């Protein structure tokens, strides 16, 4: 590589060259919009959220209670068998304290976010969600937490019907 090749190609541009209009660019914003069919499992899941309930699906072969629910078991590769309600409490598997938002912009108040393994579902069956009512230096892996729901009339059948999880304070 270094013996045979004397020059490596590529011409670096600085942010300033762009903001000064020194670089020729063409702009385009794609208009993309989707409406995904949620399918059987996720439709029921979202409708139950509206009722303030969490639901999973059980596979009768491996006996796991899958959460979030799905109509097929990825381990056994067969259709799952029954609906099972699970609890809205769980255990923090992992978390992060984020100082950036979804577009990588700095934010003042950090977001506490993590994976919660839910009580009543099988091992490691977690979902991602926010935490609140806990200081960022007090949050810990394995901490027990409980969902804080939106008021019934505010719920719309979305994962955000749970506002966040708070410490159970056991």
């Amino acid at each position, binding site marked *: 590589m270094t013996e045979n090749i004397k020059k490596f190609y590529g011409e670096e541009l600085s942010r300033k060259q762009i903001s000064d209009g020194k670089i020729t660019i*063409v702009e*385009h914003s*794609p*208009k*993309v*919009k*989707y*409406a*995904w*069919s*949620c*399918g*059987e*499992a*996720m439709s029921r899941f979202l409708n139950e959220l509206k009722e303030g309930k969490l639901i999973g699906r059980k596979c009768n072969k491996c006996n796991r209670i899958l959460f979030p629910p*799905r*109509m*097929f078991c*990825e*381990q*056994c*590769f067969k259709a799952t068998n029954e609906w099972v309600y699970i609890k809205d409490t769980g255990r923090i598997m992992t978390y992060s304290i984020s100082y950036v938002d979804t577009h990588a912009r700095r934010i003042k108040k950090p977001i506490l976010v993590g994976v919660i393994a839910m009580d009543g579902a099988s091992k490691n069956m977690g979902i991602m969600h926010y935490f609140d009512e806990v200081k960022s230096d007090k949050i810990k892996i394995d901490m027990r937490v409980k969902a804080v729901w939106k008021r019934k009339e505010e719920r719309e059948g979305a994962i955000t019907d749970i506002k966040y999880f708070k410490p159970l304070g056991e």
Partner: protein
Amino acid sequence: MSKKVGVVGVGYTGFSSVTPDVSWKEIMFQAANRAYHDAGIDPRKDVDSFITCAEDYWEGFSIFDEFVPDQLGSVLRPTCTVTADGLYGLINGYMQILTGLMDIVVVEAHSKISDLLTYNDVLSFAIDPVFNRPLIDLGAHPYYIAGMEMKRYMSETGTTEEQCAEVVRKNKLNAMSNPSAGYEAKINIEDVLSSEELFAPLKRLDISPLADGCVVFVLASEEAAKKLAHDPIWIKGVGWASETSWLENKEWGRAVYAELASRQAYKMANITYPKKVIDFAEVDDKFSYKELQHLEALGLCRRGEAGKSVEEGAFDVDGVLPVNTSGGLLGVGNTLEASGLQKGLEVVLQLRKDAGGRKLPDVECGLAQSWRGVPTTSGAVAIFEV
């Protein structure tokens, strides 16, 4: 090639304009389950590799590959995405088996295009951003590219709009005998010619309408097929090719990619006179004229003769070379990346004598051909035999 590779199972859902009852995962699960049942295999034990065919913007994900394994049974197994139509996936599976590393490979392709609300805008997003997209942004639909191509093809070959309309009539009629088809109809060429002119000379009925659906193939080496006690449909030759990404430089009257891909496939299959060997064909008909242009590119009829032949009935179910017995994309629906595998599916079903009311008598060798659609100049060919 020293080894033989065969199709030992196929599974598919129906093709229709919308599928609101199932998610993209569930539609894949349905077709995969049927394919595994057809092949008599357990994906968690018997399959060595899985291939899916998808493009991010059709699906609405930045990395669609993430959302594949669970519903195919491929968790913690070799799995990958080919960003092309299903025949490209089939070709990769074929190559994987030829290496000797794999015995059984699953290939999946689907369309859940009804989830996309802005098809035209996404298609525009495929146009070269510097040279061509600004023109599209002024209001030109990308299908104008097909309109211009049709014009050039007709002027180079003398093909008429009536002959193109005849393709639509034939394919939609064929679809009447295909219970999976989404756009079957009994129409005459007047209906086509009098349908709204959209991208002249293309009229509404010259354009294949979009459809959802999923097709899954199970491929196996000769030894593995024997163990499964199957009479596989053998893959005899494959080819794939791209012409150019410059609209300015492409051959507007010819399908160069199909010429190149078919030559590669014929060479591999030791076919010198394709017309003598190929009993029937499923060729890309995203637009009516494409069927004719592709048949000429494939060497299945002489250049400039496809139009006359379709008028004479040569490509009818009972013609000398039945073409698109499934109904083609005009009759089944345009399933985008699944369209190539849908063509492969029809060839396999015909060779297995499983094609129900549209069954062709005494066929032994069939050809499937795909084109990746506007604005691409890429496509693939696969030749199957009993």
